[in-house]
């Protein structure tokens, strides 16, 4: 659904990475690791059309990302749920409305209903639904971000450090949610430093681990 073909990216200075190929196919479950600053977040941004590759091709649902207009990118994003590393909420709206925002923006606000409540319970935010995002803890914000990413039932879920500030038990819970969604055929890509999370996932789901290092993306070995 999302394909990167020998993609390179540079922020203007030196090249951050090059010759990166990646395929987010239906039902795939992949982890992206690598040292801090290697460009994981940047690579994810290419996947949901926030950045454009310096060279190589990015295809979003069959369309060449380079040729897509802003509105086409917007429509593609409705099929991609993203957990951003820095969360990105509308700080003046309550958590529940923030989580429902992808539906609202797509003109499907009325679909939120019961699903929103189940989701809030699942990520442990049932009592925080009416609070504003700045009033949440870091971990609560990350859980809210994951809930917002999945509410529109996207074909692809991209999560950037979704468990950075979350205790082990809660990250297990979130992982299970992602695995359930993956079983429904959704492509999942998680950028993380958390090796325990990767190991646990590997016991539950067929997954691949990719490592971005020294400007290249490679399949990680069995040494995990």
């Amino acid at each position, binding site marked *: 659904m999302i394909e990167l073909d020998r993609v390179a990216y540079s922020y203007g200075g030196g090249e951050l990475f090059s010759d990166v190929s990646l395929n987010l196919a239906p039902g795939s479950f992949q982890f992206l690791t690598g040292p801090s600053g290697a460009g994981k977040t940047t690579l994810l941004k290419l996947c*949901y059309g*926030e950045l454009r590759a310096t060279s190589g091709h990015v295809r979003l649902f069959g369309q060449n990302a380079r040729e897509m207009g*802003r*509105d086409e990118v*917007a*429509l*593609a*994003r*409705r099929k991609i749920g*993203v957990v*951003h590393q820095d969360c*990105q*909420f*509308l*700080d*003046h*709206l309550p958590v529940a*409305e923030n989580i429902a*925002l*992808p539906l*609202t*923006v*797509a*003109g499907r*606000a009325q679909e939120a209903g019961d699903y929103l409540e189940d989701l809030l319970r699942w990520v442990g935010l049932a009592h925080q639904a009416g609070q504003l995002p700045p009033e949440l803890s870091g971990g609560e914000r990350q859980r809210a971000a994951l809930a*917002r990413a999945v509410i*529109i039932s996207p074909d692809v879920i991209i999560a950037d450090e979704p468990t950075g500030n979350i205790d082990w038990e809660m990250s297990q819970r979130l992982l299970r949610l992602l695995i359930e969604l993956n079983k429904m055929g959704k492509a999942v890509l998680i950028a993380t430093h958390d090796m325990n999370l990767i190991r646990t996932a590997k016991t539950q789901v067929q997954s691949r681990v990719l490592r971005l290092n020294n400007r290249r993306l490679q399949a990680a070995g069995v040494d995990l």
Partner: protein
Amino acid sequence: MITAFGRFIAMLAGDPLPDRSVPPTGYTARLTLFTSGAMAFLAMFALALSLATGRLADRWSAELARTSTLRISAPADQLDAQQAAAIKLLETTPGVASARALSTEEQQELLEPWFGPDIPIASLPIPRLIEIIEEGEGYDPTGLRARLQAEVPGAILDDHTRWREPLIDAASRLRLLAVTAILLIVAAMGAMITLAAQAALSANAQVIRVMRLVGARDLYIAGAFVRRFTIRAFAGAAAGSIVGMLAVLLLPSTEVAGGFLTGLGFQGAGWFAPLCIPVLAAVVAFFATRAAALRTLRTQS
């Protein structure tokens, strides 16, 4: 144009949710309310002026163009003969609907303000007055004068044009000025609202970013701003119009002031004109904000 208008209607009727995605912006809100209120207030006076001068010009030109006066001064024994000759001549002049000598009573009435009711008008050597009422395009004053000179030597034609034209000219100029003022007010309001909208857009860059990330399209994001500014401009202009209308109503009564101020209020169908001002403000705000928003969204992708 038609689709934009359709969107305008749909937006006013429509989904209030996009509004909530933009946080309340106190500063630009107050700026927009105040600007459109003040502009509507000013527009109300310009509008009243333009309507009144329009009426004035129409009335003057209609009344004055339709009538003129022929004055006959002659020795007492020739007056009747000359009057008869003049009327006969006038009746055969193209463009003259009727010509009628004023009766002694009417002349008395005309003189009363100056000499009181008791003047023995019959014994005074005052000229005879003939009232001419025109029809169609009116008569040709030069030709008429030439013929009068030949046949009625004591006649002087006063066709009012001497003082009519500058008056009508002044009234039309005044109306032109008033219309120009309205256009300038509308343009200034558009400019102010554009600036306010731009300020709101740049203050909400993060909001726009988040909306984009969750898949909002440009028109949706723009709509959140457009709707808000349109409603504010309408509310401000409605308040300004009401105050302006009250102020026009409270102008000294026309009878007391007499003369020129006559009719500087709204009359008849003229009362609908001020109702257009808030609508006009809303339309201006809609297009100004929409253009500003779409332009901003296009540059920051």
